């Protein structure tokens, strides 16, 4: 790829992807609450309304169920909507259309239709927004056959995976951690895609595999850098897609390192860590394990407002360092 590479923020990378998608295909349009002149709650759509007009950058009323349903209906009938939830928490209001309609329509109609809708969900804690604006609900949607669920962790992936999502004939749900929006990274100009369903080995190592998602990828990399000084060589796998999951990359990594730590922000139980662990336990990698698999996830509580409690509720770099070290040293 010889396109010019610049430093963009994660939010800018998404915005650029949406602009490219709209330039390339007239059927692509944006819908969401306050995505027009306000620029989106997190300034992801920014000034797109000035460039593409209010007919393609549509401010919806505060109507998540209806709005999501309208996007599904438009996708069903030939358009390519990108629907922004103001916060991922509000997916709860639209679950009907996402889970009962978008996800199953192709199946229920015997393959006669498809629903190429993209939905974007600003997710996660760390902003002091408390229990109803800080959740990580990706595993909810990851449980639904018919949906594809992705969690890009870098600006590069955010752009490439969004463009892949728009090109995808099926509904793609994108969970974007709010604290990533300001993260900068290299992003090539122009069109490119990053495939949905492929994990990425972000750091190679011999002693331990950390499978991380979203913001935890950077935290795992930070932990890995610290552990290097202790002579612990960590491999970091960025899962990127939780449905369909790239099992082989994780299996191969665990076969190499013989140890697995799963790190994710969502509540620990019944989540992505459980799925990755079980998948490894069922695979040929199980025989290679030198230690029990460890999960590091969010506490079994809603996200609290108090900032110290909030931090304590989700895994932080020191927690990852400790868990990784204990795992490698055999501390139970």
């Amino acid at each position, binding site marked *: 790829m010889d396109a010019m590479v610049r430093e963009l923020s994660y939010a800018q990378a998404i915005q650029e992807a949406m602009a490219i998608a709209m330039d390339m295909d007239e059927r692509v349009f944006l819908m969401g*609450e*306050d995505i*027009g*002149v*306000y*620029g989106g*709650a997190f300034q992801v759509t920014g000034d797109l309304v000035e460039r593409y007009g209010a007919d393609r950058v549509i*401010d*919806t*009323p*505060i*109507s*998540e*169920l*209806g709005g999501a349903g309208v996007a599904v209906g438009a996708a069903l009938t030939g358009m390519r909507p990108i629907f922004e939830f103001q916060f991922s*928490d*509000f997916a709860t*209001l639209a679950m009907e259309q996402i889970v009962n309609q978008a996800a199953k329509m192709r199946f229920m109609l015997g393959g006669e239709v498809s629903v190429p809708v993209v939905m974007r969900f600003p997710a996660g804690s760390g*902003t*002091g*927004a*408390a*229990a*109803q*604006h800080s959740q990580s609900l990706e595993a909810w949607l990851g449980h639904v056959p018919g949906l594809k669920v992705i969690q890009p962790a870098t600006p590069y992936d955010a752009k490439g995976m969004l463009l892949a999502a728009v090109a995808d004939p099926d509904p793609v749900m994108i969970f974007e951690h709010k604290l990533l929006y300001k993260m900068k990274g290299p992003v090539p100009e122009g069109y490119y895609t990053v495939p949905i369903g492929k994990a990425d080995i972000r750091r190679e190592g011999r002693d331990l595999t950390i499978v991380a998602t979203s913001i935890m990828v950077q935290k795992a990399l930070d932990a890995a850098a610290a552990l290097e000084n202790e002579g612990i060589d960590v491999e970091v796998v960025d899962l990127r897609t939780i449905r369909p999951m790239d099992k082989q990359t994780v299996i191969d990594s665990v076969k190499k390192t013989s140890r697995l730590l799963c790190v994710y922000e969502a509540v620990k139980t019944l989540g992505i860590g459980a799925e990755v662990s079980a998948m490894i336990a069922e695979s040929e990698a199980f025989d290679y394990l030198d230690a029990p698999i460890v999960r590091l996830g969010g*506490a*079994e*509580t*809603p996200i*609290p*407002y*108090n*900032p*110290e*409690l909030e931090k*304590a*509720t989700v895994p932080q770099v020191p927690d990852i360092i400790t868990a990784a070290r204990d795992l490698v040293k055999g501390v139970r």
Partner: protein
Amino acid sequence: MATASKAVTDSRANLPFVYRHYSAEQLREVLHKMYLIRRFEEGAEECYTRGLIHGTMHLSIGQEASAMGICMPLAEDDQITSTHRGHGHCIAKGAEVKRMFAEFFGKTTGYCKGRGGSMHIADVGKGNLGANGIVGGGIPIAVGAALSSKMMKTGKVVVSFFGDGANNEGAFHEALNMAAVWKLPVIFVCENNGYGMSTSTARSTAVKNIAERAAAYSMPGVIVNGNIFSEVAEASHQAIARARAGEGPTLIESKTYRHRGHSKSDRNRYRTKEEIEDWMSNRDPITLFESELREFGFIDDKGIEAIRDAVAQEIAEGIEFANASPSPDISETGNYVYTEQA
């Protein structure tokens, strides 16, 4: 609630409702509370700017007459559900500002023990079942509280506050229908400040007045100038009487304006400076109420000064209390997820 004596009432015969209905002392207390709301929010805003409060907050500055007008005729054990813009409702229903500040500071002495913050401020003891982070989230809950009232025969009336934006959520429509079908003692109060975040009602809402939606659910729909305390209080009084008499719900649309941005990250690009300026200088609810009180002889400059001083002190003490209060211990992250059982 004590009302003015007969003789006094006669001499006020031509005055608007509240001046006939409430004593001078009660009316001065209303002004006190409106100032308390205003100064509380200014104080909270300043603490936020100084980094003492994190997260975000939604200020109701400019909407004080609406909160006070609705809550004044409520009895102490009547209940409300509130919104993300809920500081005014909380104070109007009787909360102490020191415990609200403590909540904003994330302290254990706060109304939610530091777990909720501004967006979940509540005062269950005073009948405030809580602000809400979900637009429209409180509306069906208020209907549920009204159902409890009816089933348990407590005589309580429930008020659900929500914004103009919330009336486009399905929850609004489903809740109003049930309340009407079951004739529940609930009052729906739409505080229409013209915008849901950046989206004007003209761009989001098919009807011109939200009160028109009452017709679809066969209940009275009343429009009031939300910046005039007396108008709001009169409408609230009537709706409460109707609810208590078992005649069912009312939808009150209280037309008002928020002076500040939607939240702390708003750049006000969807409205003009002139518009904001106009509401601030020509239709400020506190100024309007103050001048009526003065005009009708319920208060003089000295009285107003005394209220302002008392409020300033209460705010300063509240912030001090919040500052000095303890933070929750991080070993307590798991508390309150489920009910503690012996």
